[in-house]
């Protein structure tokens, strides 16, 4: 009896081992078919956009059950540092979120994959024809595509504090011209507690971070009718009466009129805080200003006004900087086809409209951009932004691979003018000389 029992245990244990091993093998086969697609970007770290991306992720995975989408949020300031290290280390994500200023410098350093073959596979001209043409300027390097534009971004909306306007006796609308802007800021700027220090400011100017400082200053120049580059893109043309008029006006808001806190102290968190607390009445910002302000101070509900940035005295037409967000595939990405599926998924109607009405980023798909839902939107940010999109033009200096150094040169000279180390004339002349040296090379 014991012998047969012993035999039974032996056989059963062998069957058990075979079963376990078989399950393991089948499980591995199942696992091997599933792809983990890594998507990295700074919007994944932001409250509202991350919620939208999460919803889209679920939809995408339902349609593509063989793909698991893994989000890798990264702070905005680290958005370039982390992927560079990952690409150099041979472990890049599969899809990278890039701003309009990132794709060309990255492409010029060999950090991104050439997407021409994928564009061709998607239909070539038929594919590119669906999207807003100027946006491709940000994704083309030496005639090849290195990104796909998925959003249009407008950063020159002028947000104002309705309560502060009301208290200053100003109308409930954004100023339309520079002289009106100055007048508004002067009416609002006050030392309310008479302690010798101003505690209410008419505006907030971006001056601490190079990227923000350069972009906003260039925007002011464009809205004064200035031209940035010659046709060949090898000469910086801002050292003109219009350019000087812009620099003088912009810097004198601090050096002379003191209608802003020290711009050199103002970065994204500081500006957000000061606007939300009702210390600065007007700020140029992207559409994310409203949700961030309400998150910081719910009492601002109903007090946030928005309009277009004012036009300069030398402006002949309304113009705004057209910026964008692109998706790129880094060099060495493991799952190129799956990455392309995710990128093209973000161009579908649902994703585009979620971004438009969830976070006020405009669709890059022309058909949707011109749809009544967008053109007749009641949301004030959408309406103000849409006008700017229609009048948008690409900032040509963003297309130069040396843009990071150009941006640094603009920032340093702007700060020199704010610190009154240089006159506006000298600052502009030095800025021009430095940029000419960079873009001429």
């Amino acid at each position, binding site marked *: 009896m014991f012998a047969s029992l012993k035999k039974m245990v032996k056989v059963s244990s062998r069957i058990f081992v075979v079963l376990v091993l078989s399950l393991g093998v089948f499980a591995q086969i199942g696992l091997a078919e599933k792809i983990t697609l890594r998507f990295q970007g700074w919007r994944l770290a932001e409250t509202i956009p991350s919620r939208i991306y999460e919803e889209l992720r679920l939809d995408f995975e339902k349609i593509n059950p063989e793909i698991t989408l893994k989000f890798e949020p990264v702070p905005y300031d680290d958005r370039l540092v982390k992927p560079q290290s990952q690409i150099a280390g041979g472990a890049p994500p599969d899809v990278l979120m890039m701003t309009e200023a990132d794709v060309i410098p990255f492409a010029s350093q060999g950090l991104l994959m050439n997407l021409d073959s994928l564009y061709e596979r998607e239909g070539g001209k038929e594919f590119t024809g669906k999207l807003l043409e100027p946006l491709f300027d940000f994704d083309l390097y030496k005639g090849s595509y290195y990104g796909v534009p998925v959003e249009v971004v407008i950063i020159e909306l002028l947000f104002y504090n309705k309560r502060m306007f009301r208290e200053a006796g100003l109308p409930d609308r954004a100023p339309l011209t520079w002289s009106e802007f100055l007048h508004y800021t002067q009416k609002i700027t006050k030392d309310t507690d008479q302690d010798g*220090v101003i505690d209410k400011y008419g505006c907030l100017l971006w001056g*601490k971070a190079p990227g923000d400082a350069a972009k906003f200053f260039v925007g002011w120049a464009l809205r004064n009718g200035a031209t940035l580059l010659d046709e060949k893109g090898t000469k910086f043309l801002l050292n003109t009466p219009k350019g000087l008029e812009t620099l003088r006006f912009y810097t004198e808001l601090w050096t002379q009129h003191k209608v802003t*806190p020290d711009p*050199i102290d103002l970065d994204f968190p500081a500006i957000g805080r000061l606007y939300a607390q009702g210390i600065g009445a007007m700020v140029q910002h992207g559409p994310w200003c409203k949700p961030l302000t309400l998150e910081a101070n719910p009492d601002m509900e109903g007090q946030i006004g928005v309009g277009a940035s004012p036009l300069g005295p030398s402006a002949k037409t309304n113009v705004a900087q057209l910026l964008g967000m692109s998706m790129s595939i880094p060099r060495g990405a493991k799952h190129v086809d799956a990455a392309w599926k995710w990128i093209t998924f973000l161009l579908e109607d649902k994703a585009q409209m979620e971004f438009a009405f969830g976070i006020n980023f405009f669709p890059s798909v022309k058909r949707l951009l011109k749809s009544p839902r967008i053109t007749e939107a009641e949301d004030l940010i959408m309406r103000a932004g849409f006008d700017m999109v229609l009048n948008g033009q690409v900032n040509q200096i963003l297309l130069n691979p040396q843009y990071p*150094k150009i941006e*640094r040169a603009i920032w*340093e000279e702007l700060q*020199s003018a704010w610190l009154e180390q240089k006159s506006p004339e000298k600052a502009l002349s030095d800025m021009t000389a430095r940029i000419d040296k960079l873009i001429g090379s």
Partner: protein
Amino acid sequence: MNRKQRELLVFFGPLIITLIAVLGLPLIIAFRQSFLGDGINTGFVGLSNYKEVLLDPILGKVLRNTLLFVGFSVLLHFTIGLGLAMLLNLEMRGRKIFRILLLLPWLIPPVVGTLGWSWVLSKEWGILNAIIFHQLHLVSSPLPWLTSPGLAMLSIIMVWGWRGYGFVMVMVLAGLQGIPVEQYEALAIDGGSGIDAFFYITLPNLRFILMVTLFLDMVWTFQHFDIIKVLTDGGPVNSTEMFSTLIYRVAFRFFEFGHATAIAILLFLGLSILGVIYVRIVLRGTE
């Protein structure tokens, strides 16, 4: 190989392998990178990266800024650290609690502490200006601690001084506790004063520790990055740009890896020469 050699290999082998992997290999890779062009997979460019670094007009400013920062920060660390160590070496109630409290700046994560300081130093709303201007009226207007070139440098020296004295304090305190009490008693019997005790007993006994601490503090301060990046990011107008922030910017903002590693290698060579001279002085002293 005899038994002793085998034992040495067993005990020190893993350490040497780790040091090679963690220190040696990255150094070799960086050295190689400094002779390559910018970007990824670019070719050999010889000494052109080094030439570009040495001819860069900003190099003089960065060197000056770094030397100022290192000089004054280390001085602050030693002044505060040595003084506090001597105080904490005295017998007093609550000594243990004071030791922990005084170490707190060193223990707080650097970025967290620095963010706090950026609030303290804010021109319009910082507590420092609230005290010196609004309360005590020591100045006629709020000071631009982070937005004026001169004051920005002073601010980062102050913040690093606050953060870094703890290391000096701990090292000196350990050294003080190793000084034989009999030496002080003997001096007291001979009629020596407290100042005599400091110069003739304390300092000579602490000489080796002070020199090692000085060297380490200088090297760490040369390489320091967090406080500068968070408080000023090298601004305004490069007035607080150091080698550390310059390397970061050239590598990760301008994508010029070859150029950035050339700066890093030059800095490494400079510090190595300093280290060799220093070690020789220390060794001569101990002989």
